[in-house]
């Protein structure tokens, strides 16, 4: 009798577990999840601070943040920005400093209690007119990104935190050539530390039929994470991404109904969104 009840209870628990929505590592898109529906708050230090301070049910709703870097070739500045329309200059390294302060503080800094994730996305344009990197620009921009990586790794060690850094470039060659840089720390720079290479399916220089040749976590320059947008690709293409040996990252501008569908059907490892509180509550329902 008791055994029968236990079996029923187990079945109920199993059903409840199966009914749970897919869980994902939740990243704060453009360092802005505190003012989710205000694009003007994207990629600003104020929003980054507010986003790191967010809580839901006493925990941070996010597991990491995205920092955009933009190389301004005319002024030789490594900016914390999405494009050249940002009205004030803020440096990418200042954004990193806000994150390292957060990592050195006490208490939980992620919802899942595992590694804090920082995604560094490097933009392709180096002038307001959209010019591509020259060799000098590329060297300077990559040096900036490697400085950011170094500082984050140091803070993780000092704060005794696990850290995962995801590197993405609008141009796929930007991150792939980083792995050949003399300062490249490798994908496993220490215990509890990891660096992963990410491509967006819309990355420059990346054709859909290139994907298979680019993937493979065991390759030093293999892509580990593939980002896709929920509403701009047909089902069949998303299924093709799923079949690759990579983790998927679903990203969005706004949390639309198609986004929820994609999260439910494709079970991405990461979700990159400004609407982190909404997505957390959606996942926890």
């Amino acid at each position, binding site marked *: 009798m008791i055994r029968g009840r236990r079996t029923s209870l187990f079945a109920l628990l199993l059903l409840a577990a199966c009914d749970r929505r897919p869980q994902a590592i939740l990243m704060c898109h453009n360092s802005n999840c505190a003012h*989710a529906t205000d694009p003007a708050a994207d990629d600003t230090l104020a929003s980054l601070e507010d986003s790191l301070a967010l809580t839901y049910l006493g925990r941070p709703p996010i597991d990491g943040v995205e920092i955009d870097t933009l190389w301004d070739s005319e002024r030789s500045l490594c900016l914390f920005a999405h494009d050249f329309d940002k009205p004030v200059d803020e440096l990418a390294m200042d954004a990193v400093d806000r994150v390292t302060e957060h990592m050195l503080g006490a208490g939980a800094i992620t919802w899942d209690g595992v590694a804090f994730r920082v995604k560094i996305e490097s933009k392709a344009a180096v002038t307001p007119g959209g010019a591509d990197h020259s060799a000098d620009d590329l060297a300077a921009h990559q040096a900036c990104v490697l400085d950011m990586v170094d500082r984050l790794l140091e803070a993780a060690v000092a704060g005794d935190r696990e850290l995962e850094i995801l590197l993405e470039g609008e141009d796929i060659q930007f991150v792939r050539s980083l792995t050949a840089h003399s300062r490249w720390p490798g994908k496993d720079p220490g215990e509890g530390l990891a660096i992963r290479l990410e491509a967006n399916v819309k990355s420059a220089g990346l054709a859909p039929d290139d994907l298979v040749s680019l993937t493979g976590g065991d390759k030093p320059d293999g892509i580990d994470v593939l980002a896709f947008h929920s509403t701009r690709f047909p089902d069949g293409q998303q299924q093709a991404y799923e079949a690759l040996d990579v983790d998927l990252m679903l990203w969005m*501008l*706004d949390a*639309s*109904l198609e986004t*929820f*569908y994609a999260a439910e059907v494709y079970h991405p490892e990461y979700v990159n969104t400004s609407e982190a509180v909404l997505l957390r*509550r959606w996942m926890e*329902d």
Partner: protein
Amino acid sequence: MRLHLLFSILLAAAPATARADASDDVDHDWHTGLNLRTDTGTHRVRLDAGLRLGQVDVTAVLDPKVFIDRRQNDTDLVAEYMFRPDGWAAMAGWRLTQISIDRGTQFHHMLLLGVTGGLPHFLEVVVPRFGFEFEANVLRHGDGLEADTLSLASERDYLDLVSFNLFLRFDYAGEI
């Protein structure tokens, strides 16, 4: 298979007075049937019921899947202006989608604009129509979340909140 079953139930449930052929001289009728969609944001199989009064057709689309997927419920109210019976029509409507989240519900309000067109009747009793719909998610709100109204200020504001969708209706129609 489930779709076939649902379709058979609808046909069996329809009254014997149902009109086999929506001829041009009938101005008022009722109709009910299946509403199938291609997009992923809205449940793909729903039920509709409506009235046609002259050139104006008003249809409510209800979501039976709410009984097996309590986390999403999509309801439409759509009006069509028929340029000629069983021909082309201009369509405008409103969709309300409720999404279940931890400790609450988020509401998405969508403005619908589009065109529909009649297709040849089949099995003599089914009146199919297809439609092309522009959907704009004009308001999202609920349960302490930041309310968001659609802005056209930049692509970042609206790109994920508008879409173009296709649908197909298989309705059983009867005279009033």
